[in-house]
């Protein structure tokens, strides 16, 4: 029997299952209560991770962007500027919360939370390590793609409730963008599911060869990366929220912490898109020597780096180009990819 620490690091799933079985047997609680407590535990862990990740990833983006631009990035607050995000959060907390007088107050207040909730819900099926997943649903992939779409509601709500025609247009554009890029993303993921023979995230990770599906599905990986980039409103697809373009995005009227929540949701989405790509294409938590969590995080942040790299290199796409790209280029490619994968799976 290996030490608890070793099991905690390398085989968390069975360790937690053991605790849960013990709790079911020994505590005398009704079983749903034990399960609810454990799920609450997962939720707290996910929330903690969300906060820490936001702190790290924003610093990471600023540093990487700065180095690409021959600058230094934040280097004053904390060692290497690591506490910069904390300082910015503190600033946002003390800012005045302005709600436009003619805005729809209830919807205006709710919108950031809808977007954040949609993001938070995605942590349920993400496998951080061997068995380290809140609920390894047997339709995990479908869950991920579907719940990710709930953020559209929040965005539209934010754009509508601002009572500003430009926010509304920005919100609608953003919603249209997210919905259009869902389709190639789904098809790319479907090809992976075909290869793995299952929609469960855990199965997909285990079914991959050690180097991941990226070599078997290069086109799929690229498609998924581009589509995810567009779905999280980032990189060359950030027209709806850009400030130097004419029509400002749906976040215009938001200030202080409400804006911070949209911001937080965006950066968490960045991590989740990268994490999802890692799970499906790069082998998830698999890798020698280091604990699975470490591999998962390393691979995810590598994909995050690629997404940051893309954002800071290219200019923005115009709205009609964005739509054209999705429907006229990515969709046929995704369908072709699916067809070829299906044929090869059948034949080989």
């Amino acid at each position, binding site marked *: 029997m290996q030490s608890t620490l070793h099991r905690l690091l390398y085989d968390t799933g069975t360790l937690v299952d053991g605790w849960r079985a013990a709790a079911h047997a020994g505590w005398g609680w009704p079983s749903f209560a034990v399960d609810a407590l454990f799920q609450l535990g997962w939720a707290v862990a996910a929330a903690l991770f969300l906060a820490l990740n936001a702190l790290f990833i924003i610093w990471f983006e600023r540093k990487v962007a700065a180095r690409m631009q021959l*600058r230094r990035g934040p280097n004053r607050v904390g060692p290497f500027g690591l506490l910069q995000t904390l300082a910015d959060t503190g600033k946002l907390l003390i800012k005045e919360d302005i709600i436009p007088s003619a805005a729809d107050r209830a919807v205006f207040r709710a919108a950031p939370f809808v977007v954040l909730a949609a993001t938070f819900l995605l942590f349920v099926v993400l496998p951080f390590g061997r068995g380290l997943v809140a609920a390894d649903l047997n339709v995990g992939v479908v869950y991920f793609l579907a719940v990710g779409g709930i953020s559209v509601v929040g965005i539209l709500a934010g754009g509508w409730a601002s009572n500003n025609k430009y926010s509304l247009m920005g919100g609608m554009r953003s919603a249209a963008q997210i919905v259009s890029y869902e389709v190639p993303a789904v098809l790319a993921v479907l090809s992976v599911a075909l290869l793995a023979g299952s929609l469960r995230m855990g199965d997909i990770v285990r079914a991959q060869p050690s180097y991941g599906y990226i070599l078997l599905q290069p086109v799929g990986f690229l498609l998924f990366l581009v589509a995810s980039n567009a779905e999280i409103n980032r990189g060359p697809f950030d027209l709806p929220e850009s400030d*130097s*373009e*004419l029509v400002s995005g749906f976040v215009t009227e938001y200030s202080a912490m409400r804006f911070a929540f949209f911001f937080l949701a965006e950066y968490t989405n960045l991590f989740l898109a990268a994490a999802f790509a890692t799970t499906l294409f790069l082998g998830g938590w698999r890798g020698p020597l280091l604990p699975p969590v470490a591999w998962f995080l390393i691979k995810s942040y590598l994909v995050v780096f690629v997404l940051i790299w893309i954002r800071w*290199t*290219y*200019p923005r*796409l*115009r709205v009609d180009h964005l739509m054209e790209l999705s429907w006229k280029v990515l969709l046929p490619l995704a369908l072709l990819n699916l067809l070829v994968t299906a044929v090869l799976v059948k034949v080989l």
Partner: protein
Amino acid sequence: MSEAPAPDLSTSDEFLLNVGPQHPATHGVLRVVVTMDGEVVKDLQPHIGYVHRGLEKLFENRLYEQIIPYTDRTDYLSAIANNWAYVSAVERLLGLEIPKKVEYIRVLMAELNRINSHLLWLAAYGLDMGAFTPFLYAFRDREEITVMVEEASGGRLTTNYFRIGGFTRDLPASFFPHLQKFLRRFGRAVDELDTLLVENAIFVARTRGVGVISRERAISYGMTGPCLRASDAPLDVRREMPYSIYPSLDFEIPAGRNGDTWDRSWVRIEEMRQSLRILRQAAEGFPEGEHRVRVPRNLEPPAGEVYSAVEGPRGEVGFWVVSEGGRKPYRVKMRKPSFSNFSALPEILRGLKIADLVAVMGSLDLVVPEIDR
């Protein structure tokens, strides 16, 4: 200025969009009122005058030497070209013979200024397009040039270097080593910026075929500079109305065939390369001599009027100076390229989508203080 007729909202989808005086994408304090039908621009009413400082009236009350610092500030990105246009006008009034060395220094400064201005254009344009990185690269290269100009004149942007008859001080000893280092490095820097922004597929898709103006219409609006040359009209003041030592220098005039936004961008990149060529030739052929011609301390040019133009980074910069024999000019009229280039904007944008407004305005390379004076 007359207001656009208010759209009739009961029968159409038209509405007015105010790209207000404060806007990240207008290069300066400029207001454009766009009548839109859905996404399409029906009409455009520019409103200028937010930076009007009454410079032409001010000049009537200033000595000829005192006007030079003000000319820096009409178009702060091409301070040298403005200095040169004014100073050459007064020198013509006085009938001065300018030494060869002065002309060489002027050409060196002017071409450095041209590269400087085009780099800033590229930086700001990239920013408008959403590409944040070319901004930093362009400013790194700009810094080298600015330091060279600063060592010679003392000022980074508002140089105030030219004087009537030459320069106050000769080029410093550090100038030519810096220039040689710059000449070695900059060719690759231009290629890098070119690849990163202008040749980028996304940029090309956003700018090719967008904002076309034909050669005839461009000439009829009085457009000059890269905006005109992109419309299949390779006209340059340095060739059409030659001045200084340009006739003896070997360089080409880049031009575009379609008159669209991409051509305007390409012309500016290519102009940077041609400026590099000119700089090399001027540095090689640099003569000895005086750096200024002595002019009387109390300068009183004879009565007369003169128009003198140079090729600035934005186009033809001209000064029409009328003298009545006193120490102050009777009238100074400035011909600024951005004013004419901007006047073509309504025609260029009519029928285009609103998303192209930013792309087209950026490609015209407007500097608003120049428009308003």
